[in-house]
């Protein structure tokens, strides 16, 4: 099936999310839609899938213009979508989720569950998904849930499959499996629209790449194009993907975590007897798949969750102190979700920049705030961090994700720190801002501050880390040097110990990796 978008325009109030976008997806091709967060990729696909109504433009399927009133029409036209946030009912079984919306019945509207189970098994076998039709979806790992989503689309005879940021939630191994699935689907004639901002994956699987920036198509590229070239198209200027940083010069180990354990409401240890230490002038990156205790670990450091064990900063015990006392002790903390924990969205930029400093000099005079000092501070930070805002009085909620994150980081780094802990410091941040934030973090390290970065993005871990601690199910499975191969890290993220992972990442895999690497550098030259 050939799918064409002609001049699609979608506005949200004054914001133009899609500006006359043209796109052609040929039968049986993997078409990558590359763009930063907020570039308008997802909006475009929601228009295509009938979830949003386009203000202008038309959708053409096999040279016939079509009008989708809702997702039902898009499905009927052979367009399937795997959403970034899975559209699966958690308490339903796999079969129930797959059949929902076009249920096989046995007369009288009675569900024919057996038929649904058979369909799931057939498709699952054909593509090697290994799905159990009677498993309840909420009990399945995300990688498997994603396959359920794909089956859901395939059952409806989707000939164009839209995958919206499908790898965001996957481990490297699961990502490889997904890429294999995409190749298999393509071989069987399904076209795929692959939305992502990850260059590596695009190059691995795409036939055609369309780059979108600020709601408009800025060009297309072939998968042979160098990563730097793609990144430059995406951002609109040359960006360095790596981080230029001098080798670490670790000093004295001033931040020590010993036998730290955090239990959740059910008494299960989500952080399980974790010990590590970080030296001055060193970045320790905590890698792992989302939900393996990293969040709780970082929150335990600032006293947001109760913990047992010991966290010592320059000899002072932090466990048992309140968050306020811990921040006063010199801990800088960037929380995982800036919109929930890092910022008060309805407050101004200036106010957010002093959230944890408002009660001391120079921002406080007795019980009153010194508004002049707060404004002056805001102007300085905005200048220093290149925060794109209309001014100190603008509400933070109206800034882009990257600028919001700059506000959080600027606030935390604007006071003298003894340790800096950042959780997902660049999640949902555009490539340009990532570059900037990474530089600031490295600068803080070079100031002699111990730095802990929690990140689920291996690219970020590789870019920043001097050492890498990999967490799996609440435990640190190993602390390895920064130059550890991805394949080994991937296996460790799935629970293998460092030694074991190295052995398992067999020579062939490592060779393959080396090949890809030379291929990439070759292409760049």
């Amino acid at each position, binding site marked *: 099936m050939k799918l064409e978008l002609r001049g699609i325009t979608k506005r949200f109030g004054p914001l133009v999310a899609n500006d006359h976008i043209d796109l052609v997806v040929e039968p049986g091709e993997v078409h990558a839609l590359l763009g930063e967060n907020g570039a308008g990729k997802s909006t475009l696909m929601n228009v295509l899938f009938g979830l949003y109504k386009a203000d202008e433009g038309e959708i053409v399927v096999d040279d016939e213009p079509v009008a989708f009133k809702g*997702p039902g029409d898009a*499905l009927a036209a052979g367009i399937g979508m795997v959403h970034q946030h899975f559209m699966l009912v958690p308490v339903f079984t796999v079969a129930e989720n797959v059949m929902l919306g076009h249920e096989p019945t046995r007369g009288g509207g009675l569900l024919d569950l057996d038929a649904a189970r058979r369909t799931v098994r057939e498709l699952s076998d054909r593509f090697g998904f290994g799905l159990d039709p009677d498993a309840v979806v909420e009990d399945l790992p995300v990688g498997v849930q994603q396959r359920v989503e794909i089956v859901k689309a395939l059952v409806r005879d989707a000939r164009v499959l839209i995958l919206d940021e499908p790898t965001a939630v996957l481990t490297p191994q699961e990502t490889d499996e997904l890429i294999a699935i995409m190749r298999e689907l393509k071989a069987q004639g399904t076209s795929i629209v692959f939305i992502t901002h990850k260059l590596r994956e695009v190059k691995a699987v795409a036939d055609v790449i369309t780059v979108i920036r600020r709601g408009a198509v800025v060009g297309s590229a072939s998968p042979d194009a160098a990563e730097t070239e793609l990144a430059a198209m995406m951002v609109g200027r040359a960006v360095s993907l790596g981080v230029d940083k001098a080798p670490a010069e670790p000093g004295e180990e001033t931040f020590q975590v010993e036998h730290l354990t955090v239990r959740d409401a059910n008494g299960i240890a989500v952080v399980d007897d974790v010990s590590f230490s970080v030296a001055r002038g060193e970045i320790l990156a905590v890698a792992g798949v989302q939900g393996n205790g990293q969040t709780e670990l970082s929150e335990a450091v600032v006293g947001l969750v109760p913990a047992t064990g010991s966290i010592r900063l320059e000899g002072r015990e932090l466990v048992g102190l309140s968050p306020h006392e811990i921040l006063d002790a010199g801990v800088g903390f960037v929380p995982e979700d800036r919109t929930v924990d890092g910022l008060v969205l309805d407050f101004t930029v200036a106010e957010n920049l002093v959230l944890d400093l408002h009660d001391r000099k120079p921002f406080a005079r007795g019980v009153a705030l010194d508004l002049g000092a707060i404004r002056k501070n805001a102007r300085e930070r905005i200048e220093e961090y290149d925060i794109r805002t209309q001014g100190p009085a603008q509400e933070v909620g109206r800034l882009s994700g990257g600028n919001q994150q700059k506000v959080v980081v600027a606030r935390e780094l604007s006071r003298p720190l003894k340790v800096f802990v950042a959780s997902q410091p660049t999640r949902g941040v555009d490539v340009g801002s990532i570059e900037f934030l990474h530089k600031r973090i490295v600068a803080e390290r070079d100031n002699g501050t111990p730095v802990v970065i929690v990140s689920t993005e291996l690219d970020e871990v590789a870019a920043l880390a001097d050492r890498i601690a990999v967490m799996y199910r609440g435990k640190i499975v190993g602390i390895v040097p920064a130059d550890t191969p991805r394949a080994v890290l991937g296996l460790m993220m799935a629970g293998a110990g460092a030694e074991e992972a190295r052995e398992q990442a067999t020579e062939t895999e490592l060779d393959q990796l080396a090949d890809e690497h030379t291929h990439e550098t070759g292409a760049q030259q």
Partner: protein
Amino acid sequence: MLGLLALVLFGLLPAGGRETTFGLSTSSDFVHLGPVTVPSKASAVVLSVLALLAAAYAGWCVSRARRVGRWVTIVFAVLWVLAFLTWAVAGKSTSLVSLLAGSLFLAVPLAFGALGGLIGERAGVVNIAIEGQLLTGAFGAAVFASIVSNAYLGLVAAPVAGLVIGALLALFTVKYHVNQIIVGVVLNVFAVGLTSFLYSSVLKENAATLNSPPRLPTLPIPVLGDIPVIGPVLFRQTLLVYLLYVAIVVGAIALFRTRWGLRVRAVGEYPAAADTVGIDVNRTRWGNVLLGSMVAGLGGAFFTVGSVGAFSQEMTAGKGYIALAAMILGRWSPWGALGAALLFGFSDKLQQVLGVLGTAIPNQFMLMLPYVVTIFAVAGLVGRVRGPAADGVPYVKE
């Protein structure tokens, strides 16, 4: 589970008389069973000890980190109640059949209300307005049945009256995304105000023509109605009770076995997911709120044509809220709702029976019984229940 210590006391405390008599049949029975008379103290002790054993078994399960089967709780509760009855009725006699039949009878509005509520909530709309739907249903049934002098036509008018409240609920919650709890409470107040106004301004003066409905006759079902104990309890009831059987069975099958039910549950759990497979979320919610309000309205007919006949102000007396509790206790399932409604109905009937018998317990405490049972049931027995995930959350699309 520790509350059972108290009931050992029941058994061991000196009871008023030595013998307790349970009537098992009425005089008109085809098969006549003689009343059972048991020595009250001994049997109370035996029953209490058995209940204690059940509790001990549950405790043992817990200590072994095993799940306690539901049947243990049920066995415990039945034994507890029997022990209590034996003690309370000691020295007198009571009819077990009329106790059970009365429980079912009183459970009717609760079960209809709970079923109506869960039909809405399964689709994601909280229906606090059950009380209002019962009340308008009762009103509509009374007035219409009076005008046409036919109790059965009252059963037609009741759902229509409930529908009025349901339509308002759907309009504000589904279409305009107003907070569902607030709209529900307001509609309850509205229903009380409207029916009270109409009652005092119209019905009172024309009571003979507008507020003297015939009552639903008891329709014994041949053969089934002649089964000892069960027959009189289940099959010598009014049409409304038989309709309840049908509604529960149809509701259970429709919700869990049909395409309609799967879609409704998807809408209540994760409306965005339903939307992406082409299900119209808001239309489903409209449909379910309207259907649910009709079911609850039908339950309202119980208060007038189903029992006393004439309508009086605020005659539902909070039954709609107990129905809401029954829905939650029944974990949003029709059979569960029926079970919970029967439990509440039983406690209500028990209170009446014991009030008549005049036991040692002060009357005020007996009047509290249904409400105390409600609190304990919802707080204690339910534990952590999970309602539909999107219950109460309006579905707003870009």
